[in-house]
C-alpha cells in the first residue's frame, strides 16, 4: 500500500512522520540532529530514499546531512559554501553597502532527475549546486552578480534565497525567490538570470513598482503547467500565466493578503492554498482563528478551511517553507506552525487533524509520496 513520509524541520531538530495511504495513524521519529535548527529537508524525486537536510546553529554554522535510506541514518557531507570571486557588497538595512557573507542554507532543492544533483538557496542570497551528492558545492554566480545585486537588501529575517523551482518541462529553467529582492529566472541552467517582478507592487519601496526589492515570501507551480506561477508576497497573493514575465493580484476576498506559504493541489492546477496572517507587524492569524484558505479558481475567490483547526485563541504563525502537498489520489495537504503543531488533511483541505502537537517551532514541512 502506498504511504507518505513527512519531513519536518524545526528550531531544535528534524522529525520524520510516516503513515500509510489512509494517513490516519502516524509514526513520529526524531529528533534527528537534536538541538540544531533544521531550516529545510527534502527528498530526491528521482530516489525517494535520498534525503538532504540543512542543519545549522548560531554557534557552529552550517552542516548538510544526507540520507540514503529514507532518513533512518544520515551522513555529514560538504558544508563549504564559498562565493565565487570577490563577493562584493549589497545594500544593508540603512542603505549603506555591506559585504556579502554566507550565513546559512535556507532551502535545498534536489534535481528532478539526478539524486546526486541538488541546489541550495543560501543567505546572503546566492544559489549553489552540488553534483556529487552534497560533498562539494559550486556557486551559480550569475545570479548574485546580476547588475541589480548591489541593490538587493535583506528583510528582517535576513537576505535569504528561499524558493527554488525547477521546471519539469524545460530542464534549463529555474525560478528562484529572494527576500527582499524578488523573483529571478534562468533559462540556461543557472548561468544567466533576469528579474521577474513586473506587476508586483510593494508600498514600502521608494518606487513601489521597481524591478527588484520586493519581499516575495514564496512561489509555487503545478508540475503539469509550469508556466503558471502563484506567489505569496509580503502583502498580496499574485499569479503569473507567463512563467513570471508578468504578475497580477489574486488576493480577492482573503481576510488578509499577508502570509508566508502558498502551494498548489497535486491534481488540480487551479486549486491553491494560503494561510492568511493578520499583518507584518503581528504575525498571527486574523481573529485568533487558524484558517487555511483554498481557491479552486486559481485565486480571487477563496474559501476558509476550518474543520479541525483551532478557531479561537490561536496565535501561531505558519512559515514559508512549512506547507506541502502529497500526490495520493485524494490530495493531502500539510502545514506546520510556530507552536509546534503539524496539521494534515487527507481530503484536499476539507478536514484537518494534528499529526503531532508539541514539536519545537516548525520551520519547514515537505512530503514524499511513497509507492
Amino acid at each position, binding site marked *: 500500500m502506498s504511504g507518505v513520509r513527512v519531513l519536518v524541520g524545526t528550531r531544535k531538530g528534524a522529525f520524520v512522520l510516516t503513515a500509510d495511504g489512509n494517513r490516519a495513524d502516524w509514526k513520529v521519529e526524531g529528533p534527528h540532529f*537534536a*538541538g*540544531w535548527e533544521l531550516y529545510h529537508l527534502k527528498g530526491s524525486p528521482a530516489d525517494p530514499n535520498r534525503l538532504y537536510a540543512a542543519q545549522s*546553529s*548560531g*554557534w*557552529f*554554522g*552550517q*552542516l548538510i546531512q544526507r540520507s540514503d535510506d529514507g532518513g533512518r541514518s544520515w551522513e*555529514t557531507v560538504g*558544508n*563549504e559554501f*564559498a562565493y565565487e570571486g570577490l563577493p562584493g557588497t549589497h545594500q544593508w538595512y540603512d542603505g549603506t553597502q555591506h559585504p556579502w557573507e554566507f550565513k546559512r542554507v535556507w532551502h535545498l532543492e534536489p534535481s528532478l532527475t539526478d539524486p546526486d544533483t541538488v541546489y541550495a538557496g543560501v543567505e546572503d542570497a546566492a544559489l549553489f549546486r552540488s553534483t556529487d551528492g552534497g560533498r562539494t558545492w559550486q556557486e551559480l554566480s550569475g545570479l548574485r552578480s546580476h547588475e541589480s545585486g548591489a541593490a538587493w537588501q535583506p528583510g528582517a529575517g535576513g537576505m535569504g534565497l528561499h524558493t527554488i523551482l525547477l521546471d519539469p518541462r524545460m530542464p534549463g529553467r529555474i525560478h528562484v525567490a529572494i527576500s527582499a529582492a524578488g523573483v529571478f529566472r534562468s533559462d540556461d541552467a543557472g548561468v544567466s538570470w533576469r528579474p521577474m517582478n513586473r506587476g508586483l507592487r510593494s508600498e514600502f519601496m521608494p518606487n513601489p513598482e521597481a524591478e527588484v526589492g520586493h519581499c516575495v515570501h514564496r512561489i509555487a507551480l503545478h508540475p503539469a503547467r509550469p508556466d503558471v506561477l502563484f506567489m505569496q508576497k509580503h502583502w498580496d497573493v499574485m499569479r503569473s500565466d507567463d512563467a513570471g514575465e508578468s504578475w497580477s493580484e489574486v488576493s480577492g476576498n482573503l481576510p488578509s493578503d499577508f502570509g508566508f506559504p502558498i502551494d498548489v493541489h497535486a491534481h488540480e492546477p487551479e486549486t491553491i492554498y494560503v494561510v492568511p496572517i493578520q499583518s507584518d507587524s503581528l504575525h498571527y492569524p486574523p481573529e485568533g482563528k487558524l484558517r487555511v484558505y483554498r481557491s479552486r479558481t486559481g485565486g480571487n475567490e477563496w474559501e476558509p478551511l476550518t474543520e479541525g483547526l483551532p478557531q479561537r485563541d490561536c496565535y501561531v504563525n505558519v512559515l514559508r517553507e512549512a506547507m506541502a502537498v502529497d500526490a495520493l489520489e485524494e490530495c493531502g495537504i500539510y502545514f506546520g506552525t510556530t507552536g509546534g503543531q503539524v496539521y494534515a488533511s487527507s481530503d484536499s483541505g476539507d478536514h484537518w487533524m494534528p499529526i503531532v502537537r508539541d514539536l519545537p517551532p516548525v520551520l519547514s514541512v515537505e512530503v514524499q509520496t511513497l509507492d
Partner: protein
Amino acid sequence: MIHPIRIALPAHLRTLAGVEAEVTIDVASPVTLHRALEALETRFPMLRGTIRDHGSHRRRPFLRYFACARDLSLAAPETPLPEAIVRGEEPFLVIGAIAGG
C-alpha cells in the same frame, strides 16, 4: 615527535563527531593552535567549518579557545600550546557561549 593532545568539545560537537567525552588527537611538533585544530578536523572531518571558517580559519564568533586557564581565542594560529597541553596533562578547551532561556 607526535604528541597525544586532549581536546574538550561542546556537547553538540561531541554528538556530531560521535564521541562522548574528550578526544585525544595526535599532533606533530611544534604543537600550535592551528596544528591542534587541523589534526582535530582531519580525524573528524564533520567538524570542518563548525569551529572555524573553511578558508580563512577565522574562529566562529560564539566560540572561544582556552588552555591552562589562558584565553587563546585571539591568539595567532602559530601560537604554541602550553607544555601541560603538549604533555597531555591538561585538555585544550573549545567552549561555546552560554545561552539562556
